[in-house]
């Protein structure tokens, strides 16, 4: 079903299947009619409170879901925050997004309350998610209940669920993939959404809730496979939000599970292309979206129903990527002979050196990883030169020695100038991507 917004979605299912389970959290079951009632009641409380912008310190619980829907019903701006972020950063985000009320762990909300602002005007309907910040500081992406519902509809057209299905939501709802593909995908189809009980239960949730569908990021799927945590009823897994080694997808498929891979961005309210055939990396474009390729292979997305309103308070950043309604993704792709989209790399993962030399980092780093047998490394620039940042114990001279054959095969401008050792882990996003901007800052201080 295609719904205009959250209220239309919950109202429809509360009318059509009032006693059907909408949400499960631990041993609590909330039926669709109960969910709508709870959301409306909380929305009335929020209206009476007069606040304008609710920050959700998301813990994925039943009450968390009720709060976020209620704030949207009440016409508040909603900001999805990752509660595991350091407090100083959370305070910064609260001030940046004009939050005047918080939902979350009482101790944490108390601690953060001095950062609350006077609120916002004109934010009704906005739902803000933060981008992963792969290449620069995180930006808040302004989405709406409408755009998120259209995204859920798009996904369900590719991978339909039924009211008999149980979708397990294990991903953080503060990330748009977790929110749309872990929650809205199920609710828009009238399915039961089982709310994961947190990282502590990763190994147990599948066998506890017995889901038929699951959304996962690659590292989580790998973990579930390695710990034999998947249940036999599980029929469909949607993987997204990061590059996924094919052996992980194959291992899941070998269990008779339909494994699909999705591509999308926070800016497009989640997925715009999903694989539905035998090859998980060959993705069909979702019905509402049009994807074309620029001359250099950059993926350009026209997603009129799902596109962001823009980056919050960042018209410059919005204008840089959204031109005439077309999103310039920074990702590179190609279409195969069947018209399926394949992701081939990331344009923003290109280093452009002062002499005009370009280094395509995924390919370059893969060569280094293969030569060195060490995965915790990344390449960036320092003083305009490419340098290797090596995380963990190592000896720079030994590493340089081992890299000699690789470097010998590269143009001089692409050869590494230095090996920088750090005991710290590489800065990565929640989905494992290297935060290039942060890495560059780090390299400058090593």
């Amino acid at each position, binding site marked *: 079903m295609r719904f205009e917004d959250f209220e239309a979605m919950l109202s429809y299912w509360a009318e059509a299947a009032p006693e059907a389970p909408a949400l499960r959290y631990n041993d609590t079951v909330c039926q669709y009619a109960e969910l709508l009632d709870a959301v409306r009641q909380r929305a009335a409380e929020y209206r009476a409170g007069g606040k304008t912008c609710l920050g959700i310190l998301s813990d994925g619980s039943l009450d968390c879901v009720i709060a976020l829907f209620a704030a949207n019903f009440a016409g508040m701006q909603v900001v999805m925050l990752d*509660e*595991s972020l*350091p407090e100083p950063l959370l305070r910064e985000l609260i001030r940046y997004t004009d939050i005047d009320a918080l939902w979350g*762990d009482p101790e*944490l909300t108390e601690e953060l309350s001095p950062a609350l602002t006077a609120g916002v005007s004109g934010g009704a309907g906005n739902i803000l998610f933060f981008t992963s910040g792969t290449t620069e500081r995180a930006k808040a992406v302004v989405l709406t209940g409408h755009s998120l519902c259209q995204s859920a509809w798009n996904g369900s057209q590719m991978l339909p669920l039924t009211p008999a299905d149980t979708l397990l939501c294990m991903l953080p709802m503060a990330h748009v993939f977790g929110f749309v593909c872990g929650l809205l995908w199920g609710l828009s189809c009238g399915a039961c959404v089982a709310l994961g009980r*947190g*990282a*502590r239960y*990763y*190994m147990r949730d599948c066998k506890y809730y017995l889901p038929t569908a699951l959304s996962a990021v690659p*590292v*989580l799927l*790998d*973990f579930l496979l390695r*710990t034999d945590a998947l249940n036999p009823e599980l029929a469909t897994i949607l993987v997204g939000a990061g590059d996924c080694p094919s052996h992980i997808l194959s291992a899941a498929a070998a269990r008779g599970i339909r494994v699909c891979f999705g591509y999308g961005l926070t800016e497009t309210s989640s997925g715009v292309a999903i694989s539905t055939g035998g090859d998980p990396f060959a993705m069909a474009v979702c019905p509402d979206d049009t994807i074309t390729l620029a001359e250099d292979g950059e993926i350009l997305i026209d997603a009129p129903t799902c596109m962001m309103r823009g980056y919050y308070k960042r018209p410059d950043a919005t204008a840089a990527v959204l031109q005439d309604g077309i999103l310039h993704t920074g990702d590179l792709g190609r279409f195969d002979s069947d018209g399926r989209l394949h992701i081939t790399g990331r344009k923003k993962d290109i280093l452009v050196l002062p002499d005009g030399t370009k280094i395509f980092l995924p390919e370059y780093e893969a060569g280094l990883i293969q030569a060195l047998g060490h995965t*915790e490394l990344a390449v960036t620039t320092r003083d305009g030169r490419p340098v290797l940042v090596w*995380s*963990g*114990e190592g000896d720079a001279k030994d590493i340089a020695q081992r890299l000699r054959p690789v470097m010998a095969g590269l143009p001089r401008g692409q050869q590494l100038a230095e090996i920088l050792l750090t*005991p*710290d*882990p590489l800065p990565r996003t929640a989905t494992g991507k290297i935060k290039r901007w942060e890495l560059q800052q780090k390299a400058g201080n090593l």
Partner: protein
Amino acid sequence: MTRPEIIAQIKTVISDCFPDMDVSALEEDSVINTDTAIDSMGFVLVICKLEAMFDVRIPERQWQKLSTLGDVADAIQKRLPKA
């Protein structure tokens, strides 16, 4: 339970989870991510086993802050019932 006993138990759990890892050189100030090469999901596994072993519950929000073996021991020690 004494602090050295807690550290020893942590090392045992790491060893159980990652049999190929040499835990003998690990000290209180060993950084889990780099000195042991345990990834984020491996860390979840270790913490879950430690919680079960010591019958304690460390809030998930705190997990990000547990950098060294000593940090993990602190988190466990302060939640153990007083003798």
